[in-house]
């Protein structure tokens, strides 16, 4: 589902964000991307979304070589990828329903489709009763659920989550992880960048660790780090 071959990314000023990264993630996997700040996690996620292109190497997402993707095809790529962020990125002047519906609206889905799919997904994330609330009226965990609903409402093949629990307390984080796990069980590939040792250690999923832009570990059923200091 996601495959990178010897991917390098350097920025002007010769900062090497990623070096020789080769990763192969199969359809339906749940993968943690771990490593300290500046290790290249966010760069990796930006490359998946083609917000940036690699300096060298090849990236395949959902079977397409996205390094060579024409820029007008990028929107189609992104319709296959759901995104969740630490800061939720919800629109404060839209209700929960409108925030989720917005993702369908801007890719040209009809009102009927929106009216049918949005309540379904809100039920899935457990916010069926709050669809007319504004984001401000929700807790952080609820806001992140809305953001996950928005990412998943279009049933993408891949869900990218960049520090989705970074702003949440441990109990809420566990709920969010349960939700992501459920989404993963529907066959969606989940790639989650995180700092959260407890979560990684508890989930026991595949762990890819980056350090200084290099893959230093790729382990099935891993924990956050061998000598992880807590």
């Amino acid at each position, binding site marked *: 589902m996601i495959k990178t071959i010897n991917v390098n990314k350097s920025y002007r000023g010769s900062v090497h964000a990623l070096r020789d990264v080769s990763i192969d993630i199969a359809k339906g996997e749940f993968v943690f991307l771990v490593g300290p700040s500046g290790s290249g996690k966010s760069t990796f996620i930006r490359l998946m*979304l083609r917000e940036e292109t690699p300096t060298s190497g090849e990236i395949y997402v959902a079977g397409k070589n996205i390094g060579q993707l024409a820029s*007008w095809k990028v*929107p*189609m*790529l*992104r*319709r296959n990828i759901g*995104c969740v962020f630490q800061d939720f*990125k919800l*629109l404060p002047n839209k209700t929960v329903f409108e925030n989720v519906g*917005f*993702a369908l*609206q*801007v*890719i*040209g889905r*009809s*009102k009927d489709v929106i009216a049918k799919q949005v309540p379904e997904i809100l039920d899935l994330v457990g916010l069926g009763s709050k669809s007319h609330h504004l984001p401000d009226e929700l807790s952080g965990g609820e806001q992140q659920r809305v953001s996950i609903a*928005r*990412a998943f409402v*279009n049933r993408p093949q891949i869900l990218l989550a960049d520090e989705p629990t970074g702003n949440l307390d441990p109990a809420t984080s566990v709920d969010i992880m349960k939700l992501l796990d459920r989404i993963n069980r529907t066959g969606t590939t989940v790639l989650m960048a995180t700092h959260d040792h407890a979560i990684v250690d508890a989930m026991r999923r595949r762990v890819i660790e980056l350090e200084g832009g290099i893959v230093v570990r790729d382990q099935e059923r891993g924990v956050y780090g061998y000598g992880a200091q807590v």
Partner: protein
Amino acid sequence: MRRLEYIGTTAAQGFWRNPVMSLASTFTVGLMLLLFAFFLATDRGLQAAVGVLESKVELAIFLEDNARVSDVLALRASIEADPAVSRVDYIPKDQAMARLVDIAAKRPDIQIVDTSSNPLQDSLEIKLAHAQDAPRVAASLREEVGKGIVSDVIDNPQVVDKLLTITRVLSFGGLAVLAMMLIVALFVIVNTIRIAVHARRDEIEIMKLVGATDWFVRWPFILEGMLVGALGAVAATLVVLVAAGPVMGAMVNFIEILPLSFGQTFVWQLVGSVFALALAVGGGGAMLSVRAHLAK
């Protein structure tokens, strides 16, 4: 259909989200368009005027009373030989007098008191093919003055000369001013849309993340720019329609001879041009603005 609805509402919301800025740019665009309309109308008017006058341009030579007929005929032949001259008419002084009486009869401000004597002279009236040749032909004829045939040369076409100068100045000056106003209008629209884009930058970020196409992101802003342009065009058109009568009257009085009125066709052309320019400037400015934002 749903898309059109979305684009339309978003554009209108964008316009009213920052009414001061939107109205300021509408005003600027309107002003620019007004200038454009004025320029087009004046240019067209002056061109017509020059055309009318050019077809009428005449030089007149007054002949000495005692000039010999054979000399006059020879002079006439030599004038006719000039390719710039289209026609030469011999006007005896009686005919000149009759004409004067005729003119006086039509105008209450001139009265001919005494018609018993005729102080006028015989003359040759010379019609030119092009107004710009008038000074040269007149100069060559002036050399004949005092040689016994020609007593005086009247070259009327100073009016034409003036008009030609005005037309040229207006064309260059008008174009220059118009170009500057165009840049100002474009600048204001680019900034208005930039503010609109900035106000919706979070929305745009999310739109791009969930796979909205660039065109889907652009259209509401382009439409908003066009809306600003169109409102400016409506304002400018209204001003033109209200002011056209009085201004035209003043111009006719000012240049006197010009029996000018613009036809229906020209009015539609004018309004059409104004709206076309408005939409182009509005849409184009917005496009530049959004493109800059999306390229970031």
